[in-house]
């Protein structure tokens, strides 16, 4: 290829799409920071899992998707949701347990979903999304929609039985699904070296006769290039594939984490590899955007988040009399 010096995303996407991608990364970052702050202020009940530092894999993976395409997400799913086009006000409203939230206050942080955008939902069960993603891909194949499903999962989730069963089924039936592993080095406190027999999760793809690739998950360009190739492979009816994005979560696992299993130096090193300034610099270097415009984007993102929080705070709680609504299609008497 003659243009190899020009990064893939610059070649493949229009400036408007790239600016939108950067904006989404800022929105994710500010969303997570806003969530953290709201938690501190006692506005959020329960716990939450923040994806600060993992914005490139969320947004990069969804670049080639339309609203017809599906994703399944994880407990660390706010970024995936935003990447797939969720409304931030409704996301915060769900956090605050409000009727205007994506799950009408019934689900909270771990269950945000937006089927209208093809987002089949975060999941409280590690590995819960694998078979669902494969099922969505089976539907797409049976219905002939041409839709592709991306199944996001963590390094820790790859040790659940559901991972292995699902990859095998996806492979034997050649289903249009892309497994995107966000390998942040840890499942809670347990490092991948301690939990996982293979050094490269992508190597597991071989066992299921599907292509597997590893990329720098903090490099938006690398993630997008690899996942776009997998999405194209799936659309061409070649079947499933796996992309392992090597990344890092800069915050603790959840609100109860004391970070006893990793060093401050390690965290600081990864802070220097923050995916957002890296992507902004790439766009500036290729004259897609100016530094001033990047700052404006960041400010606009902060403003959007502040408005979302305001919307959520002002929203009504669900009615207690309706606590058990939505258990069945029709209310079934006990």
């Amino acid at each position, binding site marked *: 290829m003659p243009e190899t010096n020009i990064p893939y995303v610059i070649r493949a996407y229009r400036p408007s799409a790239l600016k939108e991608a950067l904006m989404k990364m800022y929105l994710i970052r500010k969303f997570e920071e806003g969530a953290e702050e709201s938690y501190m202020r006692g506005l959020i009940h329960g716990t939450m899992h923040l994806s600060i530092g993992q914005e490139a894999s969320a947004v990069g993976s969804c670049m080639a998707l339309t609203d017809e395409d599906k994703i399944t997400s994880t407990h660390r799913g706010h970024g995936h949701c935003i990447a797939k086009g969720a409304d931030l006000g409704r996301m915060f409203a769900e956090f605050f347990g409000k009727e205007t939230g994506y799950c009408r*206050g019934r689900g*909270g942080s771990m269950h945000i979903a937006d089927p209208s955008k093809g987002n089949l939902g975060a999941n*409280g069960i590690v590995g819960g999304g694998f078979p669902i993603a494969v099922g969505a891909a089976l539907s797409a194949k049976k219905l002939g929609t041409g839709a592709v499903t991306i199944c996001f999962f963590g390094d820790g989730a790859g040790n659940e039985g559901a991972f292995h069963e699902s990859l095998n089924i996806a492979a034997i039936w050649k289903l249009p699904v892309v497994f995107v592993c966000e390998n942040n080095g840890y499942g*809670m406190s347990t490092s991948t070296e301690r939990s996982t027999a293979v050094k490269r999760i992508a190597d597991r793809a071989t066992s299921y006769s599907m292509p597997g690739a590893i990329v720098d998950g903090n490099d938006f360009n690398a993630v997008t290039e690899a996942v776009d190739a997998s999405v194209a492979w799936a659309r061409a009816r070649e079947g499933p594939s796996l992309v392992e994005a090597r990344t890092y979560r800069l915050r603790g696992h959840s609100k109860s984490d004391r970070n006893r299993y990793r060093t401050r130096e390690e965290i600081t090193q990864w802070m220097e590899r923050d995916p957002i300034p890296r992507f902004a610099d790439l766009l500036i270097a290729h004259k897609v955007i100016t530094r001033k415009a990047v700052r404006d984007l960041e400010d606009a993102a902060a403003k959007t988040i502040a408005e979302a929080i305001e919307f959520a705070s002002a929203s009504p709680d669900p009615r207690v009399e309706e606590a*058990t609504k939505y258990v069945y299609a029709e209310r079934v008497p*006990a």
Partner: protein
Amino acid sequence: MKALGTPEVRELSYAEAIREALDIALDRDDRVFLMGEDIGVYGGAFQVTGDLVEKHGPDRVMDTPISELGGAGVAVGAAMTGMKPIFEFQFADFAALAMEQIANQAAKARFMLGGSVSVPVVMRFPAGSGTGAAAQHSQSIEAWLGHVPGLKVVQPSVPEDAKGLVLAALEDSDPVMIFEHKILYKMKGHVPAGYYTTPIGKAAVRRTGANLTIVATSVMVWRAIEAAETLAAEGIDAEVVDLRSIRPMDRETVLESVRKTGRLICVYEGVKTLGVGAEVSAMVAESDAFDFLDAPIVRLGGADSPIPYNPQLEKAVVPQVSDILVAARDLTGGRI
């Protein structure tokens, strides 16, 4: 703290009491070891194992990968072959992933193999709602497991029993499932020092009373006691029976209490329908104690619903003190 000549009285939290039991068990018996997700340096999601890994080392306090079916099943296999594993589920809800090994293997091995093997495995399940953790991290699934012959299922409500039941479970040659309520972990109470066991299958009368029996499990024992205090001021004298073990169930203690009071409320957090209260009610209805009843039996259980995230909704779907008060007043008609 301990003055000469006086017995040692110590307050420990429920989580500390369990940790002490685990520590004693690890000290006493080389065959005992702990397995679970993040139970080592992290200390467990609810800090139950705490710093045990520092004392006993990672070979005896083993972090597993996120593999509930594999982890629980490996514990079953080790138990069948001479070890005494204690497996911690990070949340009771994740037992769903391990149900095969629990219900088809651990529970049935002794029977299927004609009594030629034992499965002395202990499993611990942090359960229940009240923490804003929503539908997949808040369930009370003790009745799922209680429905499987071959398993024993206990639900300690106080720190003393939490410790004693862990140690009793380890002495038992059958699989014992311990349901620990998450909102009890920080609750303090008197815990005897040293080694002792709390009998499995034996209920405890937490408050004696003459007019009404409240049979409760786990955190509901506390709500029942609180309700009983209020009722006492209204002239209704309630007896509170802490079931402690749902399989086997202490039939005699329950029947005895009902024969005395003539009224029964069962209160439990698990889903009401097909739950623990149905068993308690049927046990009474099928016995001579039925003749002593002055009023219909009342069950207060969880709604037929997953646990919602919103805190008001979350409260609304499980019995609260106010629900017990309403039921008790209704049952006694305000008059005794």
